[in-house]
């Protein structure tokens, strides 16, 4: 996930300090219990780790990850024996549960689940066979970003990416999932994660047609910002909320909107590995992460939404969780990659 690059670049110094300190703490104090955490930078900051360690007489060992691939590789290598708790995004759960790398949560040990906002209390993509495997923690979207100098009012539909008036002045991201699901939303396809052959054909035709209007497909967070900031671009299919601020810093009067068809949302959730050594302690961590104070901190620090302190979301403008379509594992990821590659290999009509 490329939005991580943003966190990586901004949170690096802080993380280095956190990691170093928690290791130092673990040496100084011989605690009886140990919790091994595999997570993204910014999700396990020092102050919370310390509080957890003191409250539970435990040491917390944090490993940071840079990609979903890395999480899979690390879990597969030892069937999850190396980690107790992990934070990962909703669409990966099907694969993880099928490979038996996770264990179902004991919900009676998680009283803080009551703090979850209504949109996050019943996320279906983390429930398998009636058992819940994770708790939602942080979220964001794939919004439409536009230049306020060009649009006096926010564009209301994704169809602006097929609009003759903005031909050659729109950019989209080079990502199969985001391109296909967003186009499926525009076409009004009922379930954008379980599409029929007709749906696939319709999405493909629409995306090939889009090549007439698109200036380029950008590669990552910074790349998108750099192209739009260079000028000549009015609208972009964004990679996430932080791009707005990055553009504003570069002098573009950028703003984001969730079009009437809705937009993609992602949720990172905490889960427990199949190989967890101390399962009750792992539950304690997961429950602790649903503390409203941590939710507040996540929103203020990263600019992403949290799942417990809804007022903190409102404060940074993230009031649209109920209009998002949260990512799920698709029917056939390989088919989607092929479709996107075929679109890119086809010359513009």
């Amino acid at each position, binding site marked *: 996930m490329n939005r991580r690059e943003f966190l990586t670049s901004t949170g690096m110094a802080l993380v280095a300090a956190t990691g170093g300190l928690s290791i130092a703490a673990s040496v100084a104090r011989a605690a009886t219990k140990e919790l091994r955490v595999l997570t993204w930078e910014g999700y396990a900051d020092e102050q919370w780790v310390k509080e957890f360690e003191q409250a539970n007489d435990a040491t917390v060992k944090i490993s940071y990850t840079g990609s979903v691939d890395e999480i899979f590789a690390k879990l597969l290598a030892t069937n999850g024996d190396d980690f107790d708790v992990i934070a990962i995004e909703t*669409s990966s759960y099907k694969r993880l549960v*099928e490979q038996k790398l996770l264990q179902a949560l004991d919900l009676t040990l998680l009283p803080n689940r009551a703090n979850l906002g209504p949109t996050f209390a019943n996320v279906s993509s983390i429930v398998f066979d009636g058992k819940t495997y994770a708790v939602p923690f942080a979220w964001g979207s794939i919004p439409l970003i536009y230049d306020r100098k060009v649009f006096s009012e926010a564009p209301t539909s994704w169809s602006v990416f097929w609009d003759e008036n903005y031909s*050659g002045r729109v950019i989209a991201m080079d990502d199969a999932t985001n391109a296909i699901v967003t186009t499926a939303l525009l076409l009004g396809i009922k379930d954008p994660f379980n599409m029929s052959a007709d749906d696939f054909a319709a999405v493909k035709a629409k995306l090939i047609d889009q090549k007439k209007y698109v200036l*380029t*497909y950008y590669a990552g967070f910074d790349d998108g910002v750099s192209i739009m900031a260079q000028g000549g671009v009015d609208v972009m299919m964004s990679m996430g909320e932080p791009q707005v601020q990055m553009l504003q810093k570069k002098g573009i009067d950028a703003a984001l909107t969730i079009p009437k068809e809705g937009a993609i949302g992602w949720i990172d959730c905490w889960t427990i590995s199949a190989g967890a050594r101390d399962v009750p302690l792992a539950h304690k961590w997961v429950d602790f992460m649903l503390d409203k104070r941590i939710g507040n901190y996540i929103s203020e620090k990263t600019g992403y939404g949290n799942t417990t302190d809804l007022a903190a979301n409102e404060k940074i403008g993230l009031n649209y969780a109920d209009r998002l379509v949260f990512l799920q594992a698709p029917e056939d990821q390989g088919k989607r990659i092929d479709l996107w590659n*075929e679109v890119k290999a086809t010359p513009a009509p």
Partner: protein
Amino acid sequence: MIRWSLVRLAVYGIPTLLILCPMGLFLLSSFWSMSGNKMSHSWTLANYRAFFANASYWGIYLQTIKLAGIVALFGLVSGYIVAYLIWRQRGPLRYMLLLFSVIPLAMNYIVKIYAMRGILGFNGVLNSALVWSGLLAKPSTMFVFNQTAVLIAMAVIYLPFAILPIFLSLERIPHSLVEASADLGAPPGQTFRRVVLPLSLPGSVVGGLFVMVLSLGDFLTPQMVGGSQGFTFGRAIWSQFGMAFNWPFGAALAVMLLLAIAIILIAARLLTRYRRTS
């Protein structure tokens, strides 16, 4: 004895471990397949069949080879001109110029792509110059996000890789031959055509082939300056990893690319042998 065999083990063992083993593994995994979300270790040719069955994959394969070929040709011609001009200099100036021409190699590749985009882009140096001189009424995006931009950017980025081998093949020409040609009454043009060019050409073509190999595997430059036409085979390989999680198919595509590179390198090898015997 024992010490020597240890040394030999290190000399052969380390490259085997670090280079051959990973390559063998990905060759192996190209014959595996995915069943559901699990990698199945039974042998199959399905990945290669899928490559040849899907016109967009082998189509982009051929297009990428063509693109790399054109970049190599650019590299060969412009690299030859630069290398020749440097070779003609005498004294310290010659090596100063050579040093300057390869300094870009020390620069990060991503930075170079961004720099190229800064030059070719909407508010870039080129556009500003054209608008300032009145040739354009307003900035244009015609210099970036298309195939021409990919060619220009790649040719510039890979030029030092061509200059160096071409310079070396020029340097290997004994000066006495050039002098003999002049003594026998050949004007400079004829000396170049009948002595310098034939002697340096095989080495120069090898330089061009190096550029071709480098640009074959490059998926970032086309992605970043090629716009909606910037799709290359390297990117197709890349797309099979990450969320797609189809390593066997990605490995098969990588093997196909390796095959193309192997053929180019064998051609380069034959050329250098030809030079030695002639």
